[in-house]
């Protein structure tokens, strides 16, 4: 058969954000699909969302309910979702109850009713919810019953495909039940689960098989809100098409820091700014955003440790009006703090914001807060999660600045958070040292990938005007011990005045 003679299998968009990417483009037209998973994982919501997205007067949908959630309750609850269009019921999306036929135990009767309804309506979409109750209403099924059920499933699949119907069987199956005949016959299997870890619950979807398509492997988190289901694919589309590395440098907005970094941050880099609490990480990050806005760049800030209102209030000390920038779609501040967040969900939010406003700078403030916001299951493999996050963000060409808190004692210098520094191109580290009985803030550029940079420690000050880099501490040695001493042949350094009391900026 030549390529021209191959049947065209049209993709049906699911209407579920993110799911088409997971399925390799969408659902195959006329496919026989199984949606499986434990109770309460969202099977009914998923299929009804697909039906309401695709059903039309010319191409209606039939939703067969069997034994399980009573239809009246199903309609009552599903109406809460935005996708449920009451105007489509029952002329476009029709609910038909099969419990009488199912309880009879006669599978021919069940099939006869389904075929009769299908021939009357000629739908393009059919769902059977819950399919598990068909043929197994007695609980278990013996050898004879298993053969009957296998034949029934095969005849049903044949009938529905012959009628050019895309169908969905929903069932509360466990992983151990995959010898059920429906698993063999199904063209695609979507597995929905809910991982419970300590106090958090994370819903996940896996495309176990999708005939005729290359589904995205792995478990993909999803969330059900009033809008319905939204899937967060593990590998966003953008990651497959990385832009070439730029030679442009971006100003940091912190006087003196561009000179230390060899002319600013290389565009498209991932910069990590580490430091102990109160060292001014957020101040630096805010100046980075302000600098971008002043250059008519667009910026996205993901905050985890404070509410956006607090963030914006503190940013008021900058000459750039952040609130006006938000109103002009030059800046978007994203607040994510649910404690059961998945990396993919956070990534989807940030990517959506980047695409929406065309951002070139992204700030994540802070990684420490981000890690806490994650569900425990994602905290366990935070490195892998961060790797995917950074890879997907940089693939869009944005420059990313992440702040990260390091816990340090006065005698021990930790330049980076070693758990996360592997994903970065550039590292700037802040720390406290004691000089002459004063706590002094110093910073150094630890790493600038493929670029010359200053290697000396420099003091910096924080004030209500922001952060300013001071003089080099090249006359000192032992800075990493936290208690530097002046070299015998060193020159005297005038350190900037440090504000008294708690730092006015920073986490």
């Amino acid at each position, binding site marked *: 058969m030549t390529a021209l003679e191959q049947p065209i299998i049209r993709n049906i968009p699911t209407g579920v954000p993110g799911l088409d990417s997971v399925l390799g483009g969408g659902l195959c037209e006329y496919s026989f699909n199984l949606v499986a998973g434990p109770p309460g994982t969202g099977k009914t919501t998923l299929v009804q969302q697909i039906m309401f997205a695709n059903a039309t007067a010319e191409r209606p949908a039939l939703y067969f*309910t069997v034994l399980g959630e*009573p*239809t*009246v*309750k199903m*309609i*009552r609850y599903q*109406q809460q979702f935005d996708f449920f269009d*009451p105007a489509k*019921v*029952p*002329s476009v999306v*029709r*609910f*038909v*109850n*099969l*419990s*009488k*036929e199912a309880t009879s135990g006669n599978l021919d*009767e069940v099939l*006869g*009713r389904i*075929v*009769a*309804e299908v*021939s*009357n*309506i000629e739908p393009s979409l059919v769902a059977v919810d819950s399919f598990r109750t068909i043929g197994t209403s007695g609980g278990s099924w013996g050898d004879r019953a298993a053969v009957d059920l296998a034949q029934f499933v095969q005849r049903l699949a044949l009938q529905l495909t012959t009628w050019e119907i895309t169908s969905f069987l929903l069932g509360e199956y466990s992983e151990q039940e995959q010898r059920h005949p429906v698993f063999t016959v199904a063209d695609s299997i979507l597995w929905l689960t809910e991982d419970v870890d300590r106090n958090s619950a994370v819903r996940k979807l896996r495309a176990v098989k999708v005939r005729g398509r290359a589904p995205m492997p792995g478990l993909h988190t999803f969330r059900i809100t009033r809008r319905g289901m939204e899937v967060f694919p593990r590998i966003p589309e953008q990651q497959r098409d990385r832009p070439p590395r730029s030679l442009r440098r971006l100003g940091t907005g912190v006087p003196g820091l561009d000179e230390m970094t060899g002319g600013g941050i290389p565009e498209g880099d991932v910069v990590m700014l580490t430091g102990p609490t109160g060292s001014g990480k957020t101040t630096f990050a805010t100046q980075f955003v302000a600098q971008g806005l002043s250059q008519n760049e667009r910026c996205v800030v993901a905050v985890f440790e404070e509410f956006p209102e607090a963030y914006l209030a503190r940013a008021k000390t900058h000459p750039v009006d952040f609130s006006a920038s938000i109103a002009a779609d030059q800046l978007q501040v994203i607040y994510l703090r649910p404690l059961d967040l998945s990396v993919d969900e956070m990534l989807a939010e940030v990517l959506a914001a980047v695409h929406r406003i065309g951002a070139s700078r992204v700030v994540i403030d802070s990684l420490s807060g981000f890690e806490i916001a994650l569900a425990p299951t994602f905290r366990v493999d935070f490195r892998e999660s961060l790797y995917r996050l950074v890879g997907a963000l940089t693939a869009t060409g944005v420059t990313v600045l992440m702040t990260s808190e390091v816990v340090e004692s006065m005698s021990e210098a930790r330049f980076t958070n070693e758990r996360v520094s592997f994903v970065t191109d550039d590292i700037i580290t802040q720390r406290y040292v004691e000089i002459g009985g004063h706590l002094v803030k110093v910073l150094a550029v630890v790493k600038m990938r493929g670029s010359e940079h200053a290697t000396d420690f420099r003091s910096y000050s924080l004030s209500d005007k922001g952060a300013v880099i001071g003089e080099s501490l090249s006359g000192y040695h032992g800075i990493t011990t936290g208690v530097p001493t002046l070299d015998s042949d060193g020159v005297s350094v005038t350190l900037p005045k440090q504000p008294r009391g708690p730092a006015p900026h920073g986490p």
Partner: protein
Amino acid sequence: MTMPSPRFPDSVLTARRLLASDAPPRGEDSSAAIAAALQQTCLRVCGSLSDSFGDDGCNALFTRALARAEAQHPTLRDLRRADHDTIFLEGVAGTAALHGVVPVSAAIEALLAALVDILSRLIGEDMATRLINHEAPRQKGGGAPRP
């Protein structure tokens, strides 16, 4: 005991519209014809609801509606089967013949109004009206017979 006030006042109007759609034309409205029309409406509504909710779902709705309406309309007790869990809609015409068309017409209107009100509380008035008014599609040739 009085029948609780409906939360959805339009339920009475909906019930009247349902009955009107089956009512015999003037000149042919004998007691027997009216009784048959009352029964036809009840069976039609039951058929529509059974289609979506199954026989058990439909019966549950009618049984509760009966419980609400029968205090003011004792003639409805004739429609309650001996097991008290199911309703005997095929007996509407016989009940009308026994008690008279006028009181049974009022009773059936109250029964249907209670049914619409109950279903509206559960799934909303608009959805309830849609499903009650929806007629199951007629069978095309070749399909398996409907039960």
